[in-house]
């Protein structure tokens, strides 16, 4: 059961997923039910590209992406949302 009343939705952008610290923090908070995390195919694509570039392994990048998708199967893996402004209740988090 969620500990929080009325959780809201958050669109987690690729750069938040890309940073190890921000990724672990945001996913842990989502796990605790503070909000519903959303991302789009495009966000996950960008995250995967970044991972591949950083680690030099496309295979590893794919694995990272699939893990995040498996952990939060929201809207069947991703929200069909490419423009955050089409979702008035969501907040876009960007790390500086």
């Amino acid at each position: 059961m969620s500990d929080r009343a009325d959780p809201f939705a958050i669109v987690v952008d690729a750069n938040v997923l890309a940073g190890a610290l921000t990724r672990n923090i945001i996913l842990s908070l989502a796990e605790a039910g503070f909000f519903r995390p959303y991302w789009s195919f495009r966000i996950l694509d960008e995250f995967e590209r970044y991972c591949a570039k950083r680690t030099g392994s496309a295979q590893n990048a794919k694995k990272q992406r699939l893990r995040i998708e498996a952990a939060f199967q929201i809207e069947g893996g991703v929200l069909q949302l490419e423009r955050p402004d089409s979702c008035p209740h969501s907040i876009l988090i960007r790390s500086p």
Partner: protein
Amino acid sequence: MAMMHAENFSDRMPTAIDRERANQLRRILAELISENTPVSMKLSLEKAQIAEVTLSPLLAQTFLDISRLIASGKSFSITPVNAELTTQQAADLLNVSRPYLVKLLESNEIIFTKTGRHRRIRAEHLFAYKEKRDGERARILSDIAREDSANGYL
């Protein structure tokens, strides 16, 4: 008394006063409680009246659990395991949108029944799914954290 039903802890978080009072009850119960033994209490009421209350072990434990939740500032709702939930209630408990919950039903991830045009989900089936999902999620997230840490990213 009608006012008392106007809101509950699934609608709002406990206030500082709620927490303090719940903590007081929690301390008393924690001290009295012991496994398999009923808890007897004497409550002094107004006009010097005394009421004797005996709590069975499970009942005492339940009150303790509830006072713990409130004392730690958490909001919650109580759902009987055989309750029939609406799709919206089930979605709220899983912290997902209603359309996604409906997808879970249609893909047979969660058992449901149909009463006329309405889909109903038994709470025990929903909690079974939630337990599976949460376990899997926790496992993946700790894998991610462990690897990030091993790679020196954290």
